[in-house]
């Protein structure tokens, strides 16, 4: 039997019960004094720190299912900033980084964006997920804080007309048309199935692929969203199987791409599996195996052969004790580009730095890059990659 209310105990009527409060009241001045001292200490410490640094925010997913790729991106930026600090900082001041985790959630991204702005950052490198970058960019724009994303590919980000928003990677319309061209022109498929994770990024890229593929005369026979929390895709796979699709396209991240692929093959479906830059992480290979048959991904040009990129890979491994991620170089380049532009502009004022960024090309690990008036890269080519011997490699015979 569970009683609706606990029985009141007689003990509470004991007059001695009031004593502890009296004691506290008598000691009140002491506690108050302690509080004042603590507050003063915090205040003084805050003032001292504020004096001579330039603050840069590093924002992105650091935990949760997208944590791995997000952290490797932020680590890239950290290396760049440490190098600048070792050389004496920017504009004669040391750079202080504030790294915050948005957990790949849009609402959390807005909260940390506000907190970065309140902390007085002059620029933000991040976020990673488009669903975080886009809502956060409104806050940075209102506060006149420069934002550069190393990894968000949804076109909407730079289509908002914000003057100080940049991206140092391609856009999903470019990526989508590369994927659609591969599927239709190279593989000669007419029917494809498209699944996405319903996020701004995943659905965005899925939409772009569908649009381009259909404009080429193909047909998307399955077009469905899967919740980002779901982990059993067998029903979706049955639908794909029954639809007669010749390939399965996944718009989303590696954390779901891996199990989706594994379950697809376990269900006996052998059609090609095509995914995008969100699946481009070592964790995807760890899940699906070193030599999976018929897996293709769209990603930017291969830069790993360039000497600068090899140097960076060594530096990254020495600093963090693990291999770089797909977006580490982008994080590194993003930090270098904005710090170079700040040095050149002679100020941290977002509009002036932005004007410098749009004025001429910059040298990066990825080669010479140039921003257009929207803040996108003028040239961003996507190529088709596949997986061989536990590594991502560019598909042979592919421009």
């Amino acid at each position, binding site marked *: 039997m*569970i009683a609706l209310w*606990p029985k009141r105990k007689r003990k509470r009527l004991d007059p001695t019960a009031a004593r502890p409060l009296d004691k506290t009241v008598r000691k009140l001045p002491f506690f108050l004094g302690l509080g004042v001292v603590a507050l003063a200490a915090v205040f003084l410490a805050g003032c001292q720190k504020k004096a001579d640094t330039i603050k840069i925010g590093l924002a992105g997913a650091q935990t949760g299912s997208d*944590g791995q790729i997000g952290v490797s991106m932020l680590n890239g930026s950290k290396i760049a900033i440490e190098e600048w600090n070792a050389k004496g900082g920017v504009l004669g001041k040391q750079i202080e980084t504030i790294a915050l985790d948005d957990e790949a959630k849009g609402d959390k991204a807005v909260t940390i964006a506000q907190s970065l702005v309140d902390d007085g950052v002059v620029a933000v490198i991040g976020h990673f997920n488009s669903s975080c970058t886009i809502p956060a960019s409104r806050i940075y724009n209102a506060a006149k804080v420069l934002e550069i994303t190393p990894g968000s590919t949804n076109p909407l980000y730079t289509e908002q007309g914000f003057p100080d928003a940049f991206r140092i990677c391609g856009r999903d319309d470019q990526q989508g048309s590369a994927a659609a061209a591969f599927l239709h022109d190279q593989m000669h498929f007419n029917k494809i199935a498209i699944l996405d994770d319903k996020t701004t990024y995943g659905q965005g890229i899925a939409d772009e692929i569908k649009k381009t593929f259909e404009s080429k005369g193909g047909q998307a026979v399955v077009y469905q969203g899967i919740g980002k929390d779901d*982990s059993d895709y067998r*029903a*979706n796979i*049955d639908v794909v199987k*029954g639809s007669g699709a010749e390939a399965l396209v996944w718009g989303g991240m590696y954390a779901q791409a*891996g199990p989706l692929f594994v379950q697809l093959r376990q269900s006996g479906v052998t059609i090609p599996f095509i995914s995008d830059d969100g699946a481009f992480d070592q964790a995807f290979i760890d899940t699906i195996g070193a030599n999976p048959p018929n897996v293709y991904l769209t990603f930017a040009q291969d830069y790993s052969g360039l000497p600068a990129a090899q140097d960076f890979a060594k530096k990254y491994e020495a600093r963090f004790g693990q291999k770089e991620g797909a977006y580490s170089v982008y994080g590194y380049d993003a930090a270098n580009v904005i710090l170079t532009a700040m040095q050149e502009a002679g100020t941290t004022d977002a509009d002036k730095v932005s004007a410098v960024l749009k004025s001429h090309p910059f040298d990066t690990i990825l080669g010479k890059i140039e921003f257009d008036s929207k803040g996108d890269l003028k040239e961003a080519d996507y190529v088709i990659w596949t997986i061989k011997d536990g590594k991502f490699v560019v598909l042979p015979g592919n421009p």
Partner: protein
Amino acid sequence: MIAELPSSSTLIAIIINGISRGAAYALVALGYTMVYGVLGMINFAHGEVYMIGMFSCVYAIGAVSVLWGDHLFLNLACGLVVAMLFSSAYGYANERIAYRRLRKAHILAPLTSAIGVSTFLQYFIFLNVSKSKVDFPRYYSDWLAGGHVHLGEVDITYLQLAILGVTLVIMAALFYFIHATRLGIALRATAQDQLMASLVGISVNRMIAFTFILGSALAAIAGVMLSMYNNQMVFDTGYRVGLKAFTAAILGGIGNIPGAVLGALILGVTEALTTLIVGSEWSNGTTFAVLMIVLLVRPRGLLGERVVDKV
């Protein structure tokens, strides 16, 4: 939306997948329903016990494979046993620490405590074990998840058969245990009236602890099978599956053992059919719509009885 009608083999395949997904929910739902049947409280931390089962199985398999090599069945069995031990220990500890002292308190107190334990365990795993997803080692799952039985035009994997079989066997065993053994009778006595049960010599504390341990061990079995089935686990997997299982238990009539299984199967098939007919983005919507309709018609769930008037 689909253009044409699905072929019958697709339909059958979808329903079979829905049933096996439902069977997996059912194993978790049994834990909710047992605790509710005995204590009249909802153990929100049950999903986390299930998640701990998943993690301890994978880590145990990793440890023993380092210790004595890749013996498929031996290591899997070790993983399962360790998972059951860990889950039972956590289940018992939850009862001992968070619920026992609140047993006579207002009904909201243990409920709130359970939500607290659930959140605590999630973040405990998140901060101490893994912040990102952990893969189930495919070496141990591929033979089960990749092997097929052909049934007409439809393929069923060994793992799906195993999940369904284990669920039905456990349900039958539990039903028999509760209705036909001395321990089961003592358990039902405890559920009916704790004071009277203690007067006839039943140790109420022990019976309740036993309920938690049994439910947690079942959750561990579910955790191991589902992590093989879905390939991955993360710290909040338990919360998500727990919510579905809880829904299933309510749907079938919470407190009722066959009800939990029936509710879970209906839930699984509803989700799968939704994927076929309108698309998987609607699966949560239709699931809860079904729950609402059932509750409007039968407020105590499909197999719920009016007699268990505890709360």
